[in-house]
């Protein structure tokens, strides 16, 4: 029972995707097993620890390379940028945070969309990047996802969504919340045209993205260890003062409770998506 009913909202944006390694430790220490790694080695293993299988975060561009056949990806709507409809200012202006995120990631916003082939199967990809403002969903993420649905419907291919998000983007206020129904309307249009949505949840997929398109795949897949909860563990612990189970909100727990079709290790993601694309392509 919460002492303060106002404090119940989803955890929107958390900069930390991994538990920070203890101070003074080697900068490239695996949070899963404590082993050290070299960056170029980790890139070769799809950013999965070769010692313990820990899945490190993957940026949107690198994810596209991992999943799509070489040179098949053609980006769409890459020119869309966030506006600042509220003139939002917390400790810093929203526009400054946007510019900083674009500089740091090289992305226009927290999602990259486009046409691609996976093992020769045509599809549309909508891939989120947690490094861009915590993968938060504002008007641009909602719009690009909706356009990806429309593009998939027009091309008569399935849409593959790969999500990583802290939830709705607070700096766009109520408009960010409205991206939930917006993306859902786009999925309904896609479904009406006979199209399919394959949803892959990666660490973390929480809040508004989980409460909209990420949960609505015709097939829902998750990477091992993905946090996929509507409310983040910190919010749940503070509000309820319950002791959280060790696997709270994780993909493995969600699989047990029936919310996920399969947990797919990263090395198997590409062939698994190709299998499903083939199955959905043969009607």
């Amino acid at each position, binding site marked *: 029972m919460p002492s303060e009913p*106002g404090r*119940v909202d989803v955890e929107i944006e958390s900069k930390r995707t991994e538990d920070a390694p203890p101070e003074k430790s080697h900068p490239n220490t695996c949070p899963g097993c404590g082993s050290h790694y070299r960056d170029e080695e980790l890139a070769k293993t799809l950013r999965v620890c070769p010692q313990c299988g820990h899945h490190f975060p993957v940026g949107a561009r690198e994810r596209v390379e991992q999943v799509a056949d070489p040179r098949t990806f053609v980006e769409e709507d890459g020119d869309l940028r966030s506006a600042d409809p509220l003139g939002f200012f917390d400790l810093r202006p929203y526009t400054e945070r946007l510019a900083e995120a674009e500089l740091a990631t090289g992305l226009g916003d927290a999602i990259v969309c486009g046409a691609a082939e996976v093992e020769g199967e045509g599809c549309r990809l909508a891939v989120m990047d947690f490094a861009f403002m915590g993968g938060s969903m504002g008007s641009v993420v909602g719009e690009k996802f909706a356009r990806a649905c429309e593009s998939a419907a027009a091309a008569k291919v399935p849409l593959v969504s790969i999500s990583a998000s802290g939830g709705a983007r*607070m700096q766009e206020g109520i408009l960010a919340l*409205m*991206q939930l129904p917006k993306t859902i*309307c786009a999925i309904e249009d896609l479904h009406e045209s006979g199209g399919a949505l394959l949803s892959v949840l990666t660490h973390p997929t929480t809040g508004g993205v989980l*409460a909209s398109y990420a949960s609505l795949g015709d097939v829902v897949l998750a990477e091992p260890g993905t946090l996929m909860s509507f*409310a983040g563990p910190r919010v749940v612990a503070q509000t309820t003062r319950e002791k959280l189970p060790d696997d709270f909100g994780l993909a493995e727990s969600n699989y047990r409770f029936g919310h996920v079709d399969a947990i797919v290790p990263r090395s198997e993601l590409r062939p698994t998506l190709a299998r499903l694309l083939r199955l959905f392509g043969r009607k």
Partner: protein
Amino acid sequence: MPEETEIRLRERLSKLGAMKLLRGTSVDGELERLRDQLDRLRAEPTADEIWRSVELARHQDRPYTLDYASRIFDDFFELHGDRGRADDPAVVTGLASLDGRTVVLVGHQKGRDLKERTQRNFGMAYPEGYRKGMRAMALADQHGFPLITTVDTPGAYPGVAAEQHGQGGAIARSQVTMVGLSVPTVACIIGEGGSGGAVAIAVADRVLMQENAIYSVISPEGCAAILWRDGAEARKAAAAFKPDAAHCLELGVIDAIVPEPEGGAHTDPDEAAALLREAILVALAEVDGLNPSKRRRERRARFRAIGVLASTSG
């Protein structure tokens, strides 16, 4: 940019002109009060005014869904249970008679005294609550009854069991259900429209919002805790993300503001209910005549269009 502001204000006023705010408010002095309301809208709501809305939206005497159900409808028959697992008291559903016509009501319900507040879980639903709502929505669709929803929640309940039972998926599927309904639908934000737990039952043909209700992506306290690293900065956070009715109207999120009695809905629940009833009837009439597939298409187009974008190329 004064010109831009002026254009925005004009748009806001023309929207106001089109939304029949004045209907059914024939009481003496009402016109003057509404003129005041227009004057207030003409000026950007100040931080203090926004915070006053937050306080009134959460006022302990504010009418809740069942207070309106007994006043707005001639007959209200409550339906219980999600037919799968439980009956979540934070969401009420039922059949009702409105102006001689059967409708279905789905709304969040807060408790009045400490015992009821706990029992209703402060209006914070479990997935079971949303599934109960979806069951009632399906019933409405099956029988051609219009759907009325009342939104009043701080948010969906953030608990271990709620997550295990699929909170995110339930909120998503409740929206899917509303998007697909053939019958006319009207949503009313009557208090706190808190985040995903609120929009779960607010994807309607027409979205109304009471004058002192709030509708927001996160609670002021939650936003302050994350961005200001201090929950006590809630007032600043609210001023920044603007959850008040005037801003929601300006941003195209709601279709109309429903006036409240002077001082807030709690000062005169009967009058508040009469004003809300009138606004619901007007909104229903607007979408009633359409054929179902057109209504569904327009509903989708309405939500598909919400958002503000920029572009790097022309």
